[in-house]
């Protein structure tokens, strides 16, 4: 009996040991399912899915621009060519100048033209889907950001081409006696912060997240490196400057110029170009030819919608000493900045540091997926410190995400020197999807500081640059290429060094009815910037007095409002400015429902595409029968010129940037992390208790054997 016990015990133990050895070997050898089984599954044969290999429709863009003084009208034609054998729906996502007033849509199918109607966004989507399903040709133009739109075109027959034309306007500001037109042509791939929301279908390259719920709409697919560049663009511009022009030039593209007298010119691209960077055109007035004031209007019923521009005296001529300053540089070192952008940014900061006076102080903060500072404290701008700062900047590498909100939050949370004017200079390409969160943060926490944005690279996000600067009560600058860095930074610094014109007030004369004008209040102006106001003036308004303060000194001027130059389209621009101002009130805590109602009312009245309205054109003639299939394609966009594809990135190749060290106790980092949602805090525990359990079990079994063995000895 006893023997049996022990034998049984040994037997079981042996089995247990054998089993555990067996299991160990099984787990070491990987899963038990032989891989051949999977290959024979028959599910994954290439080409299994019919329609998956159909070529995407081709796209050609033609842009015709007419410039009349500060008012620019664009006609942009997208021609979609279906080269496949199936019916196709095409979706193209593209940028427009920020705050363009998009007011017309025309779809051309063969000889038929269908004019689009302005419709509430959700209704337009429903009607579009219904028309698409019914086999009707339809196109829908939607706004996703004030500078980011999409055109959907349903039911393009095999071999067919359909043209969708949109019309839009914008106003330019006369700065330094010249105009600068910027027509963006490509949406750079943007960083999408936040946690993906479950249950959504992916149609962009990024799924929606809690912080960017429309991520799939602003991340159109990208052409792969092998596909090369595509989406050719042709462009021509007629300029009627309203003054004698000096040089006309494009820092971005090769152009041909035909001058028609002193004030007029026709410009066109020398050849079709790929849509991979912003088109920029600059024209300047001859010395003394620039007008100091402009007055353009459009009459609708008894209202005169007017654009009023006025250049105040250049502040530098006023001998006001600049206050002591603390300059905080925030530089974007994310992956999208890799390539020419980060080099330009480094150059820009280097020059900016050189321009600081010893009495100024400075800080440098860099951010990508994380946020870090050059020094915890602001340093005075001594030559030695400037050298240290330059060394820090030159060592920066561009890699990782773009946690711009975390970076701004970090800077805003730092103590600011009360005796100094804090000027924050944000240097970025703005390639993020959560712009509104940044604007809200800046609006809430800017206090007495001022924010200046510097847009870097070939396709910066103009919406982010202009609105962030507006929320931070500063101004914006763009740097297109390395040659421009010194000129543009010098100009920015002239603005930083001179007092701004503040408390700008407009007093209208001649009529008791109020004049509604935007922006209202007029934003602070920096060195050389004109006042530019869009106003709806009732009949009888005959003058305006503009006043403001420059460095504590009062400045004012009165203008008689007669003899306006007639320009169609100003009413739409006025309405667009109104919508922009309404959107800004959201940050002041206005009721979003009420704001939406107001925007909707304005947009519908003036035929404008907005965040709540879209343009929709439906051809009532049925084109496709129910039996025929339709395949949807998102048209791939180019990779922006000068950017480095992530797969070619130096940092990706060594995997280094993926690992981040953190010190949980660093308070500034904690703040930064709050915004940095796309980081994993704590990796999952990934070991089973299996081996431990087996060890403990065996231990217990041996202990049991020991006890039983002892008993045997006693007997």
């Amino acid at each position, binding site marked *: 009996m006893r023997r049996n016990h022990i034998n049984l015990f040994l037997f*079981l133990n042996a089995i*247990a040991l054998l089993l*555990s050895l067996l*299991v160990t070997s*099984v*787990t070491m050898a*990987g*899963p*038990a399912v032989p*891989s051949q089984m*999977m290959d024979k*599954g028959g*599910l994954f044969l290439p080409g299994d*899915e019919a329609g998956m290999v159909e070529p995407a429709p081709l796209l050609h863009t033609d842009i015709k621009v007419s410039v009349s003084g500060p008012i620019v009208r664009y006609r942009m034609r997208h021609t979609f060519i279906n080269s496949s054998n199936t019916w196709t729906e095409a979706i193209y996502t593209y940028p427009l100048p920020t705050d363009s007033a998009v007011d017309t849509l025309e779809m051309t199918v063969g000889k038929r033209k269908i004019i689009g109607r302005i419709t509430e966004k959700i209704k337009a989507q429903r009607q579009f889907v219904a028309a698409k399903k019914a086999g009707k040709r339809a196109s829908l133009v939607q706004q996703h950001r004030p500078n980011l739109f999409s055109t959907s075109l349903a039911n393009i027959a095999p071999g067919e081409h359909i043209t969708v034309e949109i019309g839009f306007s914008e106003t330019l500001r006369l700065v330094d006696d010249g105009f600068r037109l910027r027509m963006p042509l490509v949406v750079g791939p943007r960083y*999408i912060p936040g*946690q*993906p929301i479950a249950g959504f279908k*992916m149609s962009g390259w*990024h*799924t929606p997240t809690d912080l960017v719920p429309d991520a799939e709409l602003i991340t159109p697919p990208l052409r792969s490196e092998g596909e090369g560049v595509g989406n050719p663009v042709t462009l021509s511009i007629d300029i009627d400057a309203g003054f004698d022009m000096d040089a006309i030039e494009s820092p971005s593209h090769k152009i041909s110029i035909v001058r028609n007298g002193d004030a007029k010119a026709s410009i066109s691209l020398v050849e079709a170009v790929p849509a991979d960077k912003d088109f920029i055109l600059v024209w300047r007035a001859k010395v003394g030819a620039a007008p100091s004031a402009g007055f353009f209007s459009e009459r609708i019923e008894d209202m005169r919608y007017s654009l009023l521009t006025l250049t105040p005296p250049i502040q530098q001529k006023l001998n006001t000493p600049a206050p002591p300053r603390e300059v905080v540089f925030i530089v974007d070192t994310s*992956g*999208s900045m890799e390539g020419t952008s980060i080099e330009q940014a480094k150059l820009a900061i280097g020059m900016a540091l050189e321009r600081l006076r010893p009495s100024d102080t400075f800080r440098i903060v860099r951010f990508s*997926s994380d946020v870090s500072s050059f020094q915890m404290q602001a340093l005075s701008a001594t030559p030695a410190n400037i050298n240290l700062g330059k060394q820090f900047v030159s060592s920066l590498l561009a890699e990782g*995400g773009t946690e711009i909100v975390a970076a701004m939050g970090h800077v805003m949370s730092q103590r600011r020197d009360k005796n100094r004017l804090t000027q924050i200079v944000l240097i970025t390409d703005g390639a993020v999807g959560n712009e509104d969160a940044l604007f809200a943060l800046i609006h809430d926490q800017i206090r007495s500081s001022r924010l200046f944005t510097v847009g870097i690279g070939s396709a910066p996000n103009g919406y982010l640059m202009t609105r962030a600067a507006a929320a931070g009560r500063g101004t914006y600058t763009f740097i297109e290429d390395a040659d421009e860095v010194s000129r543009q930074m010098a100009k920015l610094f002239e603005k930083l060094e001179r007092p701004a014109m503040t408390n700008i007030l407009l007093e209208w004369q001649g009529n008791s009815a109020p004049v509604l004008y935007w922006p209202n209040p007029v934003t602070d102006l920096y060195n050389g910037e004109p006042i530019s106001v869009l106003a709806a003036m009732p009949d009888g308004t005959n003058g305006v007095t503009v006043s403001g303060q420059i460095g504590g000194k009062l400045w004012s001027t009165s203008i008689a409002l007669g003899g306006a130059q007639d320009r169609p389209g100003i009413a739409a621009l006025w309405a667009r400015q109104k919508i922009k101002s309404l959107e800004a009130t959201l940050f002041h805590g206005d009721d979003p429902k009420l704001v939406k109602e107001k925007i909707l009312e304005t947009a519908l009245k003036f035929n404008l595409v907005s965040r709540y309205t879209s343009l929709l054109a439906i051809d009532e003639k049925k084109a496709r029968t129910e039996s025929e299939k339709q395949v949807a394609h998102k048209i791939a966009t180019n990779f922006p010129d000068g950017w480095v594809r*992530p*797969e070619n990135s130096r940092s*990706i190749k060594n995997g280094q*940037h*993926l*690992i*981040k*060290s953190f*010190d949980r106790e660093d308070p500034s980092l904690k703040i930064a992390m709050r915004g940095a949602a*796309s*980081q*994993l*805090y*704590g*990796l*999952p*525990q*990934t*070991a*089973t*208790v*299996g*081996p*431990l*359990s*087996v060890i403990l*079990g*065996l*231990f*217990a*079994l041996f*202990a*049991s054997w020991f*006890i039983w063995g*002892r*008993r045997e000895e006693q007997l």
Partner: protein
Amino acid sequence: MTRSREITGIALLAVGFVFVGYGLFIPAKAVLAQVLLERAWIAAPKDGKAPKPWPWADTKPIARIKVGDLDVSEIILAGAHGRSLPFGPGHVDGTSEPGRPGHSVIAAHRDTHFSFLENIKIGMAVSVELPGGKSSSYVVVDMRVLDARSETIVIDHTTNMLSLVTCYPFNDWNPGGPMRYVVTAVSV
């Protein structure tokens, strides 16, 4: 005295068997689950909807990961938590889904499904198949050991890539250790 000793002995014997049995059950379950998952996967309709591997499953297969060089083929489950990891590698919520654009993080136990990471080398090909048959290829570019108490993975959606995470060291008996082994593979 002998009686109590006998009771202790029997108790220890029982406890020993329970522990050993449980310890063996875990890898056995891990292997069996993959067989069931494999069946569910193969039987899946081609519409891309993930089937349930067993009626009471509270996770679902979302992709298949293959490493040809190591003869590995495993079904990845949704979520990397206690309800998925015993059965297969789990996709970490909040990162891109495997095989889709962006950065995807997959975790599994070092002593079952991801024990093969010990033998993975830079340059090895990793492929991810989605229901419906679409397949994405990746290549291993980096392996490293992290201390989960002070380091983490930065999720970088600008690149299509996989991070395969498991506990480290591989043959440690302690399941609660702080070290992690991270294998990075980028889309090719």
